[in-house]
């Protein structure tokens, strides 16, 4: 399918989506209370991709697009778009009559400003998503023309309200964007207007009466509550005090219990844009993990199913490649790679170590190392404890280290003072956005978080990644990424553990909340309460 055709198909979907009229059953009104965990530092989604910001900000800001659960583009602020033949020009036709919450009109100047001055400058992933954008022309108020240096098909996947929120030029221009008041009192074009943020308690949003989707939203008021303790969050859910919790707000063990309770449901929908992968990073510059054999042996010795079953209570899929199986529909995922065991292959791992000359000493210990644990929750500690036991089977003696967030970040990404680190990464809807940062030599950026801290560097791989980023042909891309996955399975700079499945637990009175690929990071404009 050529790019143009693909765009046409997308346009067709746009039309369908627009034609959808709310059914009669939907009821308007009510207050919807949901869990926001932890309390966000700000609501500046244009500055930070922090998870809790994502839970709130997309309800206030809109993106150019939204995406349905199959990752199809759904029009939002952009009614339609066209991609030029050479793929270097993308034209967006903007919706008319949209106003900001303060009453000012939304125009193409806002789009231009947002992408060029905000997202490309201060957004953590913006410089990557929009790196090919050289300028944006605004022939009229409702047309924005993106001029690209090279084709960037992945860019069209990064235009959601969560990933690239459109922000008001008239409130930001001329100010220091990083310390603007907009961070704590946001003004968007979205379905809900910001009303109040009571630190330590809640954020309150009220219905935007002038929302550009006629008749929407149904819900009168949205309140995001902060409850620090996991068990209490579950209790609040059971008690009906909150109706919705995503991104592990309700621990899996409780989610499993609630799944079987009347009135509550659990879904794994709404995370396809995120595509999270649990993994272990190694310091590949230092013994013992400078040897790929030991890394592969570790990958073999891990019982991925045990991890999923006992720590994440059945939610997750054993990793079989450096890419998630979620890339299978686009053909990028390659199956059948070696060195990814679902069940532990201890004998294989030991054989590999023996072959590499990593032999046990008198106490049966082949290597010792410190395993750092990502300080983002108890599950990761359990995983660490499991790793310690599992590794002792193959003669690797681990000591666990659990530090707080700033200490851990500094150790892993600034000081490189680690040997082995449990972590998880979002692979996002395209490998260029979420996977490249892990393996590219250009991604060895000391002091920058969540990039290539393994310091793995392979020129062959770098070349493949570079061509993969620009390749327009799906089949060619699949070939390129197949090769990438072969190399990574052989070198194993990072041991991918399993594809995580985040859970959303909700009260069944809440309807139509999972209409977007973004799930909890979505706008919630069509959600309603059946009370």
């Amino acid at each position: 399918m050529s790019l143009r055709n693909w765009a046409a198909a997308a346009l067709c979907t746009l039309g369908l989506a627009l034609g959808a009229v709310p059914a009669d059953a939907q009821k308007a009104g009510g207050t919807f209370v949901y869990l926001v965990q932890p309390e966000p530092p700000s609501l500046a989604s244009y500055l930070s991709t922090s998870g809790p910001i994502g839970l709130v900000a997309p309800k206030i800001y809109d993106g150019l697009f939204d995406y349905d659960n199959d990752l199809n583009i759904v029009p939002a602020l952009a009614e339609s778009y066209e991609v030029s033949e050479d793929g270097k020009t993308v034209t967006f036709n903007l919706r008319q009559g949209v106003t900001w919450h303060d009453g000012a009109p939304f125009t193409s100047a806002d789009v231009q400003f947002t992408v060029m001055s905000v997202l490309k400058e201060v957004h953590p992933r913006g410089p990557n998503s929009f790196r090919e954008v050289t300028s944006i022309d605004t022939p009229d108020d409702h047309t924005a023309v993106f001029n690209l240096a090279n084709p960037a098909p992945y860019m069209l996947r990064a235009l959601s309200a969560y990933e690239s929120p459109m922000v008001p030029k008239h409130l930001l221009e001329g100010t220091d964007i990083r310390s603007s008041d907009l961070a704590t009192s946001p003004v968007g074009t979205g379905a809900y207007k910001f009303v109040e943020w009571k630190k330590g308690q809640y954020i309150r949003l009220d219905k935007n009466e002038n929302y550009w989707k006629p008749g929407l939203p149904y819900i009168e008021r949205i309140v995001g509550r902060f409850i620090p303790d996991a068990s209490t969050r579950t209790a609040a859910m059971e008690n009906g005090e909150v109706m919705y919790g995503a991104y592990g707000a309700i621990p899996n063990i409780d989610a499993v219990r609630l799944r079987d309770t009347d009135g509550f449901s659990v879904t794994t929908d709404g995370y396809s844009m995120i595509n999270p992968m649990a993994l272990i990073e190694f310091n590949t510059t230092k013994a013992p993990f400078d040897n790929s054999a030991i890394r592969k042996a570790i990958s073999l010795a891990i019982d991925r199913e045990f991890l999923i079953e006992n720590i994440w209570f059945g939610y997750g899929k054993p990793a079989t490649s450096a890419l998630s199986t979620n890339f299978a529909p686009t053909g990028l995922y390659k199956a059948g790679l070696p060195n990814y065991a679902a069940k532990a292959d201890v004998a294989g791992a030991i054989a590999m170590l023996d072959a590499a000359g990593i032999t046990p000493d008198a106490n049966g210990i082949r290597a010792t190392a410190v395993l750092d644990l990502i300080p983002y929750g108890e599950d990761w500690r359990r995983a660490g404890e499991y790793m310690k036991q599992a590794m002792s089977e193959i003669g690797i003696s681990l000591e666990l280290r659990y530090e707080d967030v700033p200490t851990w970040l500094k150790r892993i990404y600034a000081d490189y003072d680690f040997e082995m680190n449990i972590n998880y990464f979002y692979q996002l809807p395209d490998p260029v956005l979420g996977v490249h940062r892990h393996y590219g030599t250009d991604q060895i950026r000391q002091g920058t978080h969540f990039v290539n801290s393994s310091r793995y560097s392979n020129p062959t791989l770098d070349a493949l990644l570079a061509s993969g980023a620009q390749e327009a042909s799906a089949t060619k891309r699949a070939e390129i990424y197949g090769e990438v996955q072969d190399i990574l399975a052989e070198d194993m700079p990072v041991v991918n553990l399993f594809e995580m499945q985040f859970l959303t637990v909700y009260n069944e009175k809440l309807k139509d909340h999972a209409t977007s690929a973004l799930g909890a990071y979505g706008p919630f404009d069509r959600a309603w309460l059946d009370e």
Partner: protein
Amino acid sequence: MSHFARRIRYVVKRLLQAIPIVLAIVILNFLLLQLAEGDAVDVLAGEAGSATPEYMAELRAKFGLDQPLPVQLAVYLKNVMFFDLGYSFRHEMPVSELILDRMMPTLLLMVATITLAVGFGIFLGLVAAMGLNTWRDTAISIFALITYATPLFWVGLMMIVVFSLNLRWFPTSGMENFAMFYEGWDRVWDIAHHLVLPTITLSLFYLALYTRLMRASMLEQAGQDYVTTARAKGVTENRIMFVHVLRNALLPVVTMAGVQVGALIGGSVIVESVFAWPGLGMLAFEALFSRDLNLLLGIFLLSALLVVAVNLVVDIIYSTLDPRIEVS
């Protein structure tokens, strides 16, 4: 000098005396926090997902974290002198605003807890002392010990399970009903309703202390000579217990209550966490883990002042209870 003027002078003197302590606390914690790895910028950048070293350097400059340590400290102290607690790095709000916001819930929980623990503790201690070595005494002692020895969070979670989920008497958490946003008296009632479980949980821990203290104090006072005198005067046993002994026995309890206040601000982290109570403890906890230096120092400073103030109040109460103590 009039009695009132003497009191004022005393209060001023005590506040002056507190200044070096409060400053020392600030400096100590400032230096301690410098030992911690990473800073607020690391956390902010880490949360944001990704940030360039240049951006992080820029942020550090903005927060003044690039200055040499003594300069940072001097600037902070200078600001404190002018009652300026600075800006929270993380919340991008003045620290004083953040703290004041959390002050009410903290005080609410603190006062309710102390009142309940002290009041109930005095009552139980009294009952135990009056029925010395009877089953009542034993039962109260065991009850007090068990409430003390049960880990707080366990009590908290059990309270939620029993009283919120099973009996549906109280909400699980929070300070208000966020679906309703009550106003006026309805709001007061709503907050009181939310206050019940955290208060009971927290005061159960302190209850033991006051019960035992009160019991011991009652027993000690009951053996004093003035009790014999009162008996020799033909005063009834009830009056001896409730008027003569009780008042003297309260003195150590009051002292202890004063000492406890300091512990209570920090000790409520667990309860605040379990019940999502928006208090200073949780704020401090989060500030620590986000290396929000200004905010954390501000909380320490304010809670120190709070302790000083409470101790002052306790001293004044003490002096009205015990005429031997001169407030001067």
